[in-house]
C-alpha cells in the first residue's frame, strides 16, 4: 500500500514537473517573440506599461502619429508589427502609399480597442465668463470666436490677458487632429463635412482665429493644473483629463465639459498585413492592453471605469466625427494655417 502510494506521488510529481516545464518553455518561447509596437505620444504611459509585459518582449516606439505616418508613407519595409493609434492615420498612410504605387501596409483594424470622449476643459473662474459669452453652452464654435480676443473683451478681467486655447498639434498628434475635426463639425453644425466646406472663407477665418491663438508652448493637462494661467481652454480626451483632474490637489480644478454631440477618440490596433505576430499582438492588446488602458482612463468594454471617467456621459455608436478622408484633408488644411 505504501509502495503504491509512493508510486502515485512520484508519478504525480513527474507529471507536475512536466507541466511546469512545458509552461516555462512556452513562456520562454513567447518571451523570445519580439513585438514592435508603434504608439502615439498620447499613449506613452500605456505603451510603456505593455513593454513591461512578462509574457512577450515588446519594443515600443512612442512618437507623434504624424511622425510615424510620414515615415511609413514611403517606407519600403515597415519597422513595426502594429500601431496603436486613432483614425484616420493607418488609412491615410495606406491611401498615400497606393497613390505612390506602393502596397498597403495594414490589415483591417477591427473594432476599437478602447474609446474616450473628447472634452473641453475651462479654467475657473474664466468658465463663467465664457459661458455667458457663449449663450450658456460652451462649444468649439464659440471658443473659436472668442480665441482672437482678450478676456476683457468678453466680460473677463484685464489681468487675464488674451483668451488662450490649447490642444495638441493637429498636424502631428492623433488627438489634436480629432479635436480640430470636432471643432470643425461644431462650427458647421454637422459631421457630414465635405472638402468644399474646408475651403469656405468664413470657416477658414474662424479656424485661423482659433488655431493662431493656440499656444505654441508645449502644453498638457498637467500644465493646465500646475501653471493655471498658461492656458485657459484645453481640448483633449476624457482619458487624458479625467483621472488627472480627479486626483489633483489644486485650489481650483478646471471645469470638464463634453461638447454636444459627444465625439470620441476610438483607439485602434492597426496590425501590419502579413505579420507573423499579429495573433500575439492582438492577444496582448486585447488582454493586458485592455486592463492598462482602462486603468489609464480609457473606456474599455468589460473593464471598470477609472476615477474621473464620467459614467453618466454615454458614448455614441460611432465616433461622432467627420470621415477619415476628411480628417486627412483637414490635416493638410491646418498645415497651411499654422
Amino acid at each position: 500500500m505504501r509502495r503504491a502510494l509512493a508510486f502515485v506521488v512520484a508519478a504525480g510529481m513527474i507529471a507536475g514537473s512536466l507541466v511546469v516545464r512545458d509552461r516555462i518553455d512556452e513562456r520562454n518561447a513567447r518571451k523570445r517573440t519580439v513585438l514592435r509596437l508603434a504608439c502615439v505620444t498620447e499613449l506613452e504611459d500605456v505603451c510603456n506599461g505593455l513593454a513591461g509585459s512578462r509574457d512577450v518582449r515588446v519594443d515600443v516606439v512612442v512618437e507623434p502619429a504624424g511622425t510615424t505616418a510620414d515615415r511609413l508613407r514611403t517606407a519600403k519595409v515597415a519597422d513595426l508589427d502594429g500601431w496603436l493609434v486613432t483614425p484616420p492615420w493607418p488609412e491615410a498612410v495606406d491611401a498615400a502609399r497606393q497613390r505612390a504605387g506602393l502596397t498597403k501596409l495594414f490589415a483591417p483594424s477591427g473594432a476599437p480597442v478602447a474609446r474616450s470622449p473628447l472634452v473641453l476643459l475651462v479654467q475657473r473662474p474664466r468658465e463663467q465668463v465664457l459661458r455667458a459669452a457663449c449663450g450658456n453652452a460652451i462649444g468649439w464654435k464659440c471658443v473659436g470666436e472668442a480665441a482672437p480676443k482678450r478676456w476683457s473683451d468678453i466680460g473677463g478681467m484685464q489681468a487675464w490677458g488674451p483668451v488662450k486655447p490649447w490642444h495638441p498639434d493637429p498636424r502631428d498628434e492623433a488627438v489634436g487632429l480629432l479635436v480640430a475635426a470636432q471643432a470643425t463639425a461644431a462650427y458647421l453644425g454637422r459631421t457630414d463635412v465635405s472638402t468644399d466646406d474646408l475651403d469656405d472663407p468664413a470657416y477658414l477665418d474662424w479656424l485661423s482665429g482659433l488655431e493662431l491663438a493656440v499656444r505654441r508652448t508645449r502644453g498638457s493637462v498637467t500644465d493646465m493644473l500646475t501653471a493655471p494661467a498658461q492656458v485657459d481652454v484645453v481640448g483633449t480626451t476624457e482619458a487624458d483629463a479625467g483621472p488627472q483632474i480627479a486626483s489633483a490637489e489644486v485650489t481650483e480644478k478646471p471645469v470638464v465639459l463634453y461638447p454636444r454631440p459627444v465625439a470620441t477618440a476610438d483607439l485602434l490596433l492597426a496590425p501590419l498585413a502579413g505579420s507573423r505576430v499579429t495573433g500575439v499582438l492582438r492577444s496582448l492588446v486585447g488582454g493586458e492592453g485592455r486592463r492598462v488602458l482602462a486603468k489609464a482612463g480609457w473606456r474599455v468594454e468589460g473593464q471598470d471605469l477609472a476615477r474621473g471617467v464620467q459614467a453618466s456621459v454615454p458614448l455614441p455608436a460611432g465616433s461622432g466625427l467627420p470621415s477619415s478622408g476628411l480628417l486627412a484633408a483637414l490635416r493638410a488644411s491646418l498645415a497651411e494655417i499654422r
Partner: protein
Amino acid sequence: MTRRRPATRLTVRVALVATLLAGLAAACGGNGKGRASGGLDDVPKGCEAVDMAVSPEKVTLLTDLARSFNDSDAAKKGGCSVVRVQKVSSGVGMQLLANGWPDAQANGPRPVVWSPASSAWGAILNQKRRDKNQSDLAPPSKAFMRTPLVIAMPRPMAQALGWPDTPIGYADILSLAQNPNGWGAKGHPEWGPFKLGKTNPNFSTSALSATIAQYYAATQKTSGLSLEDLGQPQVDAFARGVESSVVHYGDITLTFLNNLYRSDRRGASLTYVSAVAVEEKSVIDYNSGNPDGILDPGEVPRKPRVPLVAVYPKEGTLFSDNPFIVLDAPWVSARQKQAARAFEAFVKQPENQRRVLKFGFRPGNPQVRVGAPIDRANGVDANQPQNVLDVPEPPVLVRILDLWAQQRKAARVQLVIDVSGSMGEPAGGGGETKLDLAKRAATSALNDFKDDDQVGLRVFTTGIRTTEPSDYLDLVPIGRIGDNRGQIDAAIQSLEPQHGTPLYTVAQASYDALRQSFDPTRINAVVLLTDGKNEDDRNPDVNNLLTRLRNSNEGESTRPVRIFTIGYGKDADLGVLRRIAEATNAAAYDASDPTSINQVFTAVISNF
C-alpha cells in the same frame, strides 16, 4: 547525514546569495558622502552612471533627490544606476551641448540628463544644431517643477509704484528708468535713479525670460512674437531703454541677491538696486535670509530688514519649467535612458514633489497642492501669475539673444592684470605658466565685448617703472574696443612676469580713475586678476581700502564703479579679493585651478 547535506548546501547557497545581495546593495546603496551622495563620485563596478547637468538654483534639491534615489530600490531596477548631479548654468549647458560637450576634464562628464531652468534652452539648442544640419539633442520633455519669472522689488519701492493694488509691468519700469528725476518722480529722491538688476540672457534663464517679456511688452503681444516684430525701430528703442537702467549683468541672479542682502545689513538696500528680474523661488529664499538659496552647515538665516516682494508683470510672464531632458545624444546608452526615466518618475512622486515645494518651487505633479512657502508671508502669491506669455519659436529665441548683444548697456572696463613674478610659475600640464594661460583666456574674452564697449589694459607689479606711479602701467588706455582690440591683444601677448604684488594700490588707483571719468550711460567696472597677496609695504592697509570703496559706492547719487576680482592660482588671497568685490557690490571669481581660467573669464565678462 544524507538529510543534512542538502540543508548544508542550501545554507551555503543562501549565504552566497545573501553575500552577493549585500555586496550589490552596498555597491548601489551607499551610506553617506561616497558615491551615493549625488555628487560626482566614483561609480561602483557594474553600476551605470547617470550624469545630470542642472541649473544652479536647483542643484541642492536635485543632489538631495539623487541621494535618496541612489539609496532606493528604484535605482536597482534593471541593474544598478547612480545619478550624479553637477551644476551648469542653463546657457553654458546649451552652449556646451551645441559644441558636443568638449573637454570633460574641465566641463564635467557629458550629461545623460540635462535640466536647464527653462525648456526654451532646449529649443535654442536644437535650433543651433539645425542651423548646422545636425539632429536635435533635446527631445520634447516634461516639467517636473516650475517657478515664474518675477520682478523682485524692495517692498517700499514696490509700494511707491502702487503695489499691491496697482498692476506693475515693464512699461512702468521703462518709464521710471527714463525719467531724469528717477525715484524723485515717485516722491523718493533719496533713492536716486531707478536701477535694474538683470543677468546676462546668454547664461541665465531669468534674464532670457525677462528679455523675452520685454519684447512682448514692446510689441504689446502675448504670443506669436516674430522676427519681423524684433526688427521694428520702436521695439529696438524699448529694449535699449530698459537695458539702459541695468546696474550690471552677470551669469547668475544670486550675485545681485547676495549684494542686495549685504547692502540690506548695512541699511543701504534701497540704493543698490531698485528691481531685479529673478525667479519667484529666489524671492522666497531672500526673504528667508538665505539669498543664494544655499545654507552652509551651521549657517543661521537672518531675515533681511527690507523684504522683497514679487511683482508679477502685468503684461504677463514666463515660467521656468525645469524640463527633465533625457538627451538624444550619441553618448547616451539605452540603459542610461532607462535609468534616467526611473529617476524622473522618482522625482515626480508626490513625496518628492513635497520636497520640491519645500525648496520654493511649484510642484510639477498636480497631486501636490501649492502652499507654504509660496505665500504672501514670503512676498509671493500662489494665485499669480494671471497671464502667461508664450515661449517664442526657436529662430526668434536665437535672434533675441543676438539682438541683446547689441542692445545691452555698453560697458567701460579697465582690465587689470597681475604680472608679478609668481605668474611665471608653471600651471596645467603642458609646461605653460600661469601667465600663459591667463593671456590666452584674456585674449579669448576680448571677443565677448561688443565693439561699442570701452576697454583698457593695465598691468601691475612692484617697481614696474621708475617714475610714479611705479606699481602699474597702462599698456592700452581705455577706448572703444572695436578700434583697439588688436592693440590690447598684442599688449597681452607681450606680458612678462616681473616683481611683487601691489594689490591694494592698484585696486584703489584703478577704481579712482574710473570714478573720475565715470560714464553714467555705461557699466563702469574694473576687472582685477591676481595670483597673490598684497606685497606692497607702502600700502598694507586693506581696511582703509575697503572703507573707501564702500563709502564711495553707497548713496543715491553715487557713481558706482564695480571691481570684479579673479583669484588666480592657489596662492591668491581669495578672502581679500571677495571683500574688495563685495565693497563695490560686484562679485569675486575663484580660478584657484589655473586651468579653469577660460571659464572664469567668460563668467566675469558676462557682467557686461
